[in-house]
């Protein structure tokens, strides 16, 4: 009896001992956990602050110029009216070329192609093309469109180069948009006895419209931001009149203009004017991109709701 009691108390004290050491251990673990969590939170905070401060800095420096209507004119130095027109022109022209081609390619990959070597090769090609530096694509555009096809340094050459740059991105986004259409919907379409192309037009494309719009808007962002692919294909200066739809002239755009003023063109206009123009243009670009990114989601959602309602 007493021996048994002894054993049970020693077992109990053993158990206590184990618990105490476990408790000490978890205290240590909690401490480490808190330190690590603090560090992660701090890193994130600093990273976020970096980006937020960049946005604030760009807007703070640029908005004073943006609210001056003269900034958007095209006479005298320190105006960017021409560059804004060029950027818009380039945006529209490249979307007109890009969207049908990329959408057609996406339709082929999603609706027609069978899984096999061809699809793998196309996907691999798209992925590789997406990884090619835009400057290298600029050299390619210069070689092929400007020289071999004799298009010269023109808006058209720049647009075709942008097509190479944006094709893989848009293809991916459009593919995602098309695959998101439910299989039942497709089968419903085919069961009605129509051809595949008819089914795609009447069923798949309307339902994937939100995703397609998102793709268009995001590729628009890339067109507006791009400069490296354009300096050897479109040029970095303007003719006397840029307000024309002629695709066969050499122009710059907002981003090229900033680059030009701060590097090879430094000294062509006074330094403070160059800085003012750059700051204003940078703010304008950031605002456009913020609007595009926030807008692409809400537009997609809005259209989705309309499609659902109809």
């Amino acid at each position: 009896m007493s021996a048994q009691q002894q054993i049970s108390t020693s077992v109990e004290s053993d158990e206590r001992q184990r618990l105490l050491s476990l408790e000490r251990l978890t205290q240590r673990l909690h401490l480490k956990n808190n330190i690590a969590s603090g560090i992660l939170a701090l890193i994130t905070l600093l990273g976020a602050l970096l980006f937020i401060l960049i946005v604030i800095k760009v807007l703070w420096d640029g908005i004073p110029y943006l609210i001056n209507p003269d900034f958007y004119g095209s006479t005298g130095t320190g105006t960017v009216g021409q560059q804004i027109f060029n950027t818009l022109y380039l945006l529209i022209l490249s979307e007109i070329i890009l969207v049908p081609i990329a959408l057609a390619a996406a339709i082929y990959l999603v609706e027609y192609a069978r899984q096999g070597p061809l699809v793998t090769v196309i996907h691999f090609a798209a992925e590789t093309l997406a990884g090619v530096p835009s400057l290298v694509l600029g050299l390619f555009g210069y070689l092929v469109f400007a020289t071999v096809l004799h298009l010269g340094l023109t808006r058209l050459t720049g647009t075709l180069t942008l097509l190479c740059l944006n094709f893989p991105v848009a293809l991916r986004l459009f593919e995602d948009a098309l695959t998101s259409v439910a299989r039942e919907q497709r089968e419903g379409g085919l069961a009605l006895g129509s051809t595949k192309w008819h089914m795609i037009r009447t069923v798949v494309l309307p339902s994937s419209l939100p995703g397609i719009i998102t793709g268009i808007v995001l590729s628009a962002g890339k067109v507006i931001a791009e400069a490296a692919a354009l300096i050897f294909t479109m040029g970095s200066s303007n003719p006397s009149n840029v307000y024309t739809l002629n695709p066969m002239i050499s122009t710059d755009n907002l981003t090229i203009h900033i680059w030009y003023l701060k590097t090879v063109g430094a000294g062509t206009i006074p330094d403070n004017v160059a800085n003012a123009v750059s700051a204003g243009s940078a703010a304008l670009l950031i605002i456009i991109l913020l609007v595009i990114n926030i807008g692409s989601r809400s537009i997609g959602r809005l259209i989705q709701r309309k499609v659902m309602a109809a």
Partner: protein
Amino acid sequence: MAANSVNVKTENTNTARSIGTRRGRLSDQIARGIFFVCAVLVVVIIFGVFVFLGINGLQMFKDPAARNFFTSSSWDPSADSPSYGALGFILGSVVTTLLSIIIVAPIGFGMALYMTEMAPRWVNALLRPLLEVFTGVPSVVIGFLGLVVLVPWIANIAAPIAPSAANAGNGWAAATLILVIMILPTVVSVSIDALRAVPDSVREASLALGSTRWQMMKDAVLPAAATGLGTAIVLGMTRAIGEALAVSMVLGGDIHLPAKLLTPSVLFQPNINITNAIVLYFSEASGTERNGYFMLGFVLLIISFLFICVSRYIASRSVYK
């Protein structure tokens, strides 16, 4: 609706049906052909990029003076006996890329971990769009900011150890920090995707064994996401090595590599890399020199291609897709 009406018609009259389907078949065939051509266009483009840059670049080796392209760091096309050593440019690209990824990797993984495993919802709601905007930020905007903010700031700090106090802000240090800003959003976004791909059962397994959240992240989630995080690193490096204008704006160098390479001051003086050389000199160049810039472009292309292959290989080994 349209499909319905076709259906009704074809049931009524045999002739209408055969005409209708024949026309349908034909348009289907044509549409299919067009789509096919567009899809194959991607392959044609990337093939063309390799062929055109390769042919033009490799032509430089017809000139005996270009034989030292991969062996010398002296690039001086206008000298009496021209020299085309590209090692200096390549070194610049490699150094800035490596330095920037070394800085970006811990920050990027830390942010991705915090955002997936710990952050309250509003933090993600704020940061995700911000990161997306910065993934596509115009490189000239960052370059301009670099010129007006970063370069003077570095010049202030580094003046004592730099060879020339006036130019202390330009160079590899500024370029590295610019690259950090340019590639951090990409690395964070891809890392977040990688961490999200780790199933919650892995997290549960770790927590149920009495691990803290930090141990769960460090010992269970990070190893399970290792391949995805590797892809994030490689994609970040792909962006970094090809980044042109922003880097070129703050590098400030021409064609000369600094004399003393193995001192810290090498980071704080005007310096060179591949993209800067192409941006600055391509449009004025001719002959062998011009082909040399195509060759530099081709080198970039090959490096990017290798990076993409590596990232595909890593991704193919992933446990969770």
